């Protein structure tokens, strides 16, 4: 396996010097500024292309009918798959998970799945027999740091954009309609959590940055990922090792994170509305729709 790339000693030293002595980042960003975040949806439902500076992520949601787990007969199945391929960087190998990959998938799991963002009960079709299995595949196309925040945004965007085939139950017969027969329906969505990652620098972690790029990630001494929604409800805080961080600093980080999450949330809503407008052919088919718009948050 090729060795992972590593910045030179000069680069590491310089980056720290610039941060601590001059308070500047190499790309001129403010300490609490994200790189430009861009989201585009594909032609299919449930495909989200997210780019955060040079980090690029593709998330694709899909659904199929399957048998629920025996111990959870009333719940559907929801999985998030994050496999890093050599496209991310040549040292990642297929079927050989690295630490980056494991941490990314656990964070997404905690943020999106365990926080109950997707209503898994609504995925149940026939108790104990049939349910939807919803799956999101996260593909990292280009890795320039902060995979977590970008991947989380992509997963949430893909799921909120996704439509699963409509179904009906009549006399104990389950029918799954094709897109031509009935317009597919959105998932039961409860709230939209986002990740905000802070990176810490210096001997005591006194300098904190948002949205570290690849080089900054190589030099940081600790990081904290805070997952929350726009109502300020915190789903999880992960601080995996590194130097200790003051509790007061953490509180500050959380409050900045909330403003960022509100921005993400507004951006995603506007992109979803824009896409809906683009797809809305209007007229007859729209009027034939029987269902009400769900309010999602």
């Amino acid at each position, binding site marked *: 396996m*090729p*060795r992972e*790339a*590593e910045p*030179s*000693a*000069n*680069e*590491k*030293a*310089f*980056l720290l*010097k*610039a941060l601590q*002595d*001059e308070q*500047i980042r*190499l*790309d*001129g960003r403010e300490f609490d500024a994200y790189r430009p975040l861009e989201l585009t949806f594909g032609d299919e439902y449930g495909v989200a292309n997210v780019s955060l500076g040079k980090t690029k992520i593709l998330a694709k949601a899909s659904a199929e009918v399957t048998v629920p787990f025996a111990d959870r007969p009333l719940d559907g199945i929801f999985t998030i798959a994050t496999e890093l391929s050599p496209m991310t960087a*040549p*040292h990642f190998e297929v079927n050989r998970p690295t630490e980056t990959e494991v941490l990314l998938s656990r964070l997404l799991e905690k943020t999106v799945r365990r926080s109950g963002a997707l209503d898994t009960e609504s995925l149940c079709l026939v108790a104990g027999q049939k349910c939807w299995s919803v799956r999101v595949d996260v593909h990292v196309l280009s890795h320039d740091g902060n995979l977590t925040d970008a991947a989380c945004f992509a997963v949430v965007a893909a799921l909120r954009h996704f439509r699963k085939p409509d179904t009906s139950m009549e006399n104990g017969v389950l029918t799954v309609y094709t897109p031509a027969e009935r317009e597919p329906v959105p998932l039961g969505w409860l709230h939209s959590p986002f990740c905000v990652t802070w990176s810490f620098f210096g001997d005591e972690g006194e300098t904190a940055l948002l949205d570290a790029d690849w080089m900054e990630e190589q030099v940081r001494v600790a990081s904290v990922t805070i997952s929350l929604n726009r109502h300020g409800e915190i789903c999880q805080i992960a601080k995996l090792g590194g130097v200790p961080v003051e509790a007061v600093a953490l509180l500050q980080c959380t409050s900045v994170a909330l403003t960022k999450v509100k921005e993400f949330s507004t951006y995603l809503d506007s992109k979803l509305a824009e896409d809906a407008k683009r797809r809305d052919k209007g007229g007859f088919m729209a009027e034939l729709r029987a269902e009400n718009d769900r309010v999602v948050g």
Partner: protein
Amino acid sequence: MSTESPLVVLPGESIDPSLIPTHHKNPLRLGPGLRHIPPSEIVPTVAGQLVVDNRKTSMWIEYNGGRYIPSQNDLIIGQIVRSATDFYYVSLSPYTPNATLPHLAFESATKKTRPQLSPGELVYARVSLANKHMDPELECVSPSTGKADGLGPLKDGMVFDVSLGFARRLLMAKSREEGKVEVLEALGEDGLGFEIAVGRNGKVWVNSESTKTVVLVGRALRETDEKNLGVEAQRKLVKKLVREMR
């Protein structure tokens, strides 16, 4: 350099024989991107623009992008990976086999006075041997004069990654006229003092008394490269960055 409209070629396309320069005495010299299939066929191997220099009876393909492939006499910026008994292993780009740099290939180096470099440090070196069947070899000293000529360890400063084509333009003898790179001059005219070393492997090392200057030079170089800025836009960019930093 030819004056006709740019001729884009793709791998395997045939080249109009009338374009191939001939000279009664000088042999034809083929540059990057071309291969000779005996007896007399010349075929491009990459997509790019065919450039013919009739005066020097040479031709090559001008292109940008891809990974650095070492070639003899290139100046490169390498990163020390580790030291063996009598040479250093040096990385020229990530995921490629290491080049070797003998401990004694520095100016007036002896077993006792050679520079001690630890992993992660940088050197500015020349490729002394590049051969597809062997790992590349480097030197930080001119073999004919024994002088360093500016090569050697690079202390402090910062390295910025640029595209291979941009590094080539920066290294041109007349980078301003032929390469249309004005950004360094513009930075200098704004009163910024800095040292710079350009590696053919797409790396630019910048050092200065002031940390801000290094950051500024790095951003100017990267933006010029990534956004394909012309001469005017480069000047504008430098003005804008200098204003921001002050």
